[in-house]
């Protein structure tokens, strides 16, 4: 995975994590609240929560990447080359533009499917009785159930990589960007000046836009040869090298 992709992802995730802290912050309060222990025990719950999130994000990224790989296969078969990255990029640009328009006052409300909400409520209700560390882990694992557009945007980016492994890595980068602010919750939202807070939506949208453009321009999936060898099992189909082999052969023939 080239650095040209991961750094922007981490960066964007950091910027957007101001919102993450606001939205998922109460969960941290939930799983660690009512817990009389302090110090190491508390730290364990935090660790469990973040590990749970890591697992679920990686799985999401792997699935998305695999789907993107299937799209790539289809695209190759149709002679279009790598479609996943382009499609993902376009989607993210579209999304970013929508966010910016919303901020400017143009747009409509959108609500997710009710089934997800019911499921989330059910999970949370079940979890109340459990010990804090288990609670933290389950809440972390259930994070993908929340209809968070920000998360799904990065899942789309993961799909754009066209491989399960790369997709998981993208999501790992995303996760890495979200950890700092969520951990330091006491610092979180409240202490940020109002002025800074106002800019968060715009900044996030711009970050999405940047990644989207990168995808469309083909920078999203620079294949790493060593990774390919190691991940031969999980990568759908074979990765086509940039030049068809026959050209190289032709060059070699006397």
């Amino acid at each position, binding site marked *: 995975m080239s650095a040209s992709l991961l750094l922007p992802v981490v960066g964007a995730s950091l910027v957007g994590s101001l919102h993450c802290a606001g939205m998922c912050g109460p969960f941290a309060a939930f799983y660690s609240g009512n817990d009389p222990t302090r110090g190491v025990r508390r730290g364990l719950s935090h660790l469990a929560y973040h590990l749970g999130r890591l697992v679920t994000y990686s799985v999401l990224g792997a699935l998305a990447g695999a789907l993107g790989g299937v799209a790539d296969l289809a695209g190759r078969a149709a002679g279009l080359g790598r479609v996943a990255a382009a499609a993902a990029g376009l989607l993210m640009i579209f999304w970013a533009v929508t966010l910016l328009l919303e901020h400017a006052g143009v747009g409509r409300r959108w609500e997710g499917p009710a089934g997800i909400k019911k499921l989330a409520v059910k999970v949370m209700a079940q979890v109340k009785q459990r010990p804090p560390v288990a609670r933290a882990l389950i809440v972390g694992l259930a994070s993908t159930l929340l209809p968070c557009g920000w998360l799904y945007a990065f899942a789309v980016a993961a799909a754009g990589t066209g491989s399960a492994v790369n997709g998981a890595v993208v999501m790992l980068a995303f996760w890495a960007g979200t950890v700092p602010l969520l951990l330091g919750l006491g610092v979180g939202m409240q202490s940020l000046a109002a002025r800074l807070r106002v800019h968060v939506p715009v900044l996030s949208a711009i970050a999405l836009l940047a990644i989207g453009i990168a995808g469309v321009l083909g920078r999203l999936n620079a294949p790493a040869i060593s990774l390919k060898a190691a991940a031969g099992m999980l990568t759908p189909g*074979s990765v086509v090298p940039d030049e068809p082999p026959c050209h190289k052969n032709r060059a070699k023939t006397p």
Partner: protein
Amino acid sequence: MSQASLAGLDAVGEEADVACSHCGLPVPRPLLEAGASTQFCCDGCRTVYSVIFGAGLERYYAERREAGSEQKRVRSSDKTYAELDDRAFLATYCRARGSGLLEVELYLENLHCPACVWLVEKLGKVVPGVVAATVDIGRSTVTVAWPPDKLQLSEIARGLATLGYPPHPRQSADTAELRRIEDRALLARMAVAGAVFGNVMLLALALYAGAFQGMDSDYQSFFRWASLVVVTPSVAWSAGAFYRGAWSAVRTRTPHMDLPISIGILAGFAWGTVNVLRGRGEIYFDSVAAVVFLLLVGRWLQRRQQHQAKNAADLLYSFAPSSARLLSDDGTAREVPIETVVEGSLLEVRAGETVPADGVVVEGSSTLDASLLSGESRPIEIVEGARLHAGTLNVAARIVMRAEKTGQATRVGRLLRSVEEASTRRAPIALAADRAAGRFVLGSLTLALLTLLGWWHFDSERALENAIALLVVTCPCALGLATPLAVSASIGKAARRGILIKGGDALERLATPSLIVFDKTGTLTEGRLELSSWQGDEALKPWVAAVEARSAHPIALAFGRALGACDVEVCDYVQTPGGGVEACIDGQRVVVGSVAFAKARTELPPQLEAAAREAAARGETPVLVGVDGRARALATFHDPVRADARASLLRLQALGHRLAILSGDQPEVVQAVREKLDLTFEFALGGSAPEEKLAVVERETERGPVVMVGDGVNDAAALARASVGIAVHGGAEASLAAADVFTTRPGVSPVLELFVGGSRTLGVIRRNMLLSLAYNLVCATLAVAGAIAPWIAAILMPISSLTVVMSSYRAKTFPEIS
């Protein structure tokens, strides 16, 4: 925080930022909800907010120092069924069952096969305290009995919901709607499964072609992955219909047909996925998709058939008309379906038509034949203001009525409902079938495992396919469906022939050779008087006709039937109750009456007197005719034996039954009838009061099965005591309270039809079971041998159910017998 920020909204044109009630970030203007107390910047925040409140975790907002916000408790989305514990509900819908138990009938969603019946009847395992749960699969209802002081109805409802069968209170309007919703859900699943099936087959076609002609590994890989992606919605959602049943079966440890099916589908999907990830090996997604789709189609067809089976509405149309003549304001009448008639509609009922609804006469007067309900064949006078009931016959003239109750709310509708409810009593053969079907499922699972292991050595790829084919093709549903379907089809057909049967067990008992005890009057005989002989002066006949024409006495009516009308002028007419009539014709005094009546008014020649005594000894009724003080003729009357009685009784004897007569009428009359019939009777007793009849039946039941045929009201005790009680008149309501069968047509032929129908039904049941067993043996063998692919199995399975269904409904159990 949010409330303070909302102040910014009121000022028009102000750029004040509203902060999200959850995360505090600004809410974009397009997402603002006017008038809402909480605003959110995105759907995610809204969800988390409701999740936290929904789980009762609102106190954790304290960490965010949100001061003074209202702790609004979002209602949990889980249904608690608390409304079922409402006192008004319990009073309206629940019946007391004795020993402190209450009983309620609930409509259940997702009931689709006999295995579901077993599951639900195990309700006591899931909700301890439930005393009984009886399912009527034709109407998708369960009748639950429980002690209300120890257990709440809402708990029972929740238990049913966790089993996978959400309950609803049974109201006829709602059930139709619920059924439509269920049908739509099933159709949606079918649609998805069908779309998936088509696409996966296309992909499979490509892969098969590739297997023969060679295909780039890229393409192959793509098609395999694409198959996996495409089949996932079918396996994850459409097949959910099967997983629910399977899961409940596992939880209650009851064998259920959905279990092998679910195992087959999931095994095929899992192994195929593993092979896709590995990059080599067979994939089975085409079979899996085919199985899901075809089984869903089969289930849909099954549901349709079951719900088209006999139900109360069906029975009702045998007795009440399906259309009525609605009078509009301008007086024109048009035919409308009975369902569209509402309370207060004016309906026109012409002479000779059946009354379509319960109501009141508003115009006209006529006579009504209410024999269906009261058993009284004597016509009732009706005038304006009189009450009418659906199912009765308007005899004389056109009337206009105002409808008050229609359909199942009418008296006859309610009556038929009780017939339908009683029909859930299961015949013994059905109970045996239920048990057998349970062991069947276990057998099929074991055999599948053995098949898998056995084939693994030879050809591991095909092993799984063969096991899946076996799981899918073996179907105990035909076994479980055979009896209820045959019984319910027969009951429906019998109803259309005017025979109401109150339970499948009665039908089965009719097939055993028994002692049939007949009541005489009305069953073996016509039930009315008929002129049997005339001795003496024939010329007097017209005069007698003229005199008797004025009376409504049964003898007078019999005279009328025999002699016809006569226009002779009659004067000084006097009728003496219990004696006779006298009048003056042409200046001469005519007397017609009983022997005692005639003796007091005329001189009786000895040969006429002797003849009268002989007639009485034969059981006939003598009537003397005298003119001017001298008895000149003797007319005798009897209740004639029905024309078809002898033939029908002979056929009953041929079926292996023994015959007897038990009557309240005079012994001489009974003897005369016996001689007339000229058949072997075990006994023919007359002069029996209801108590004596009961004693006789009791005595005989000790020796073998007894079928009693009699009057529903007078012979109620004997009818109830007999193995099968058949009421041939006496009014439907009273009869069905005591007897198992009620016939609306008089005579012996309906009784014969009933017996023939019973043995034919048993024949159909046996045929169904044989069909099912044969099918399972043959197809299971083929599957184990590897001759059937899973998708073929999926087609065969519903075919077997449908064959049983067809065989039950097409069988001629109650045809017109000539």
